[in-house]
């Protein structure tokens, strides 16, 4: 779900960079308030690297296989650090694997990063209830994982289809968006289920990782 170079008009690319700058600045302000910023930078960096590596895992879905995006999960685990983490991850991907591109880095960061922040707010809600926590956590994990992906997919599809060609008619655009969202719907479910499984694993083995 990375828009490659060459697809978007320069105004969209520049808007993407501007928005990314703004969101990053906001996140950094939040991070600066963090009491443990010194300790959290190594933690966020290592987890950024870990997520990058984990996104290389091939999940087989015959006849093909998919890579997971993990932006909801990153939001849930990293909070405000998730946005810079995603920005850095995208930069690595663009430079090392030619996924996405340098001109579209800003746009891609918005597509994947803002849903991560939304997932963070959502996942925080699990502190609402005292009891019935496991159930609530399951629901929220699923919603964070699947929701973030759907949100990203929607932005991705709309941006791509509306920008690709000035001569396409509205109906064709609408069809194209819905078709691609259908495909991403399946991935969203997988991503949601995966997030549930992973959060429950972490909760069992290393709960500290979730409470920060």
């Amino acid at each position, binding site marked *: 779900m990375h828009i490659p170079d060459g697809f978007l008009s320069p105004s969209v690319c520049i808007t993407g960079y501007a928005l990314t700058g703004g969101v990053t600045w906001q996140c950094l302000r939040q991070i600066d308030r963090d009491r443990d910023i010194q300790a959290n930078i190594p933690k966020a960096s290592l987890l950024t690297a870990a997520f990058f590596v984990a996104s290389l895992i091939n999940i087989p879905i015959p006849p093909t296989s998919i890579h997971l995006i993990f932006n909801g999960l990153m939001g849930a685990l990293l909070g405000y650090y998730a946005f810079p983490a995603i920005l850095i991850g995208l930069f690595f991907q663009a430079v090392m694997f030619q996924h996405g591109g340098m001109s579209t880095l800003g746009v891609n960061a918005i597509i994947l990063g803002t849903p991560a922040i939304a997932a963070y707010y959502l996942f925080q809600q699990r502190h609402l209830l005292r009891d019935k926590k496991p159930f609530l956590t399951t629901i929220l994990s699923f919603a964070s994982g699947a929701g973030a992906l759907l949100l990203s997919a929607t932005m991705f599809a709309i941006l791509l289809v509306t920008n690709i060609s000035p001569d396409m008619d509205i109906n064709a655009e609408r069809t194209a968006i819905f078709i691609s969202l259908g495909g991403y719907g399946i991935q969203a479910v997988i991503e949601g289920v995966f997030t549930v499984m992973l959060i429950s*694993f972490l909760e069992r*083995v*290393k709960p500290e990782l979730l409470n920060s």
Partner: protein
Amino acid sequence: MTNLIETAEQLSIKTKAVSLRNLCFSYEQERAILTDINLEIASGESVGLIGANGAGKTSLFLAVCGILKPTYGEIKLFERPIQTGEFNPEIGLVFQNPSDQLFCPTVRDDIAFGLENIGLDPEEIKARIASALSLTGVTHLAERISHQLSGGEKCMVAIAAVLAMLPQIVLYDEPSANLDMRARRRLIKFLQSSHETTVVSSHDLELIIEVCDRVVMLNQGRIVADGTPEEIMSNTSLMEANGLEVPHSLTHSHRR
């Protein structure tokens, strides 16, 4: 199941458990990591593999297991060529760092992992877990979270997980690194009593002396010596030429 294995064991008294012929390997085209390795290991033998860092011990193990594809030569286990990239049930590998091998929440899940992969039924799985745990002496850890175990405990659990698959050949890659003496002593006892064909790679030469009845020395991807532990390890010039030192237990008994 058990019958089958016993037959295999009886058979294997005559058979070669591992036979490598002209094995060559390199990661990329560049530099050869393993060069023309010829090695035969009889069933039931216990072989130590020694050599400096980067000599190619781990790479050799991975090739024998079928993980790395040799660039040349052939690898046979019990006279059958191995299937590269596939699971070869005859052989098991205990990794250098046990954490690489433990990824399920509890010890029990971890041991069950391999058994579920080969599609055993729950009863059989339960029985195998119990016997692997008791064999390695860690029955009391069954319900613990693997990640939170101490180094020595992790090591024994990793071994249990491999043994539960009932391999006939087990490769141990530096099993005693980071163990304290008590855990190391337990490991030595365990290795001495185990019946499988074993190959142990280690920098801990004292451990090799206690566990193995044959030593193979590797240097820059070539076998440079092969013989009994005493013969090879007390040969000062050979050891030093290959970046090793004669272990204390041998220097003293020879000097005086």
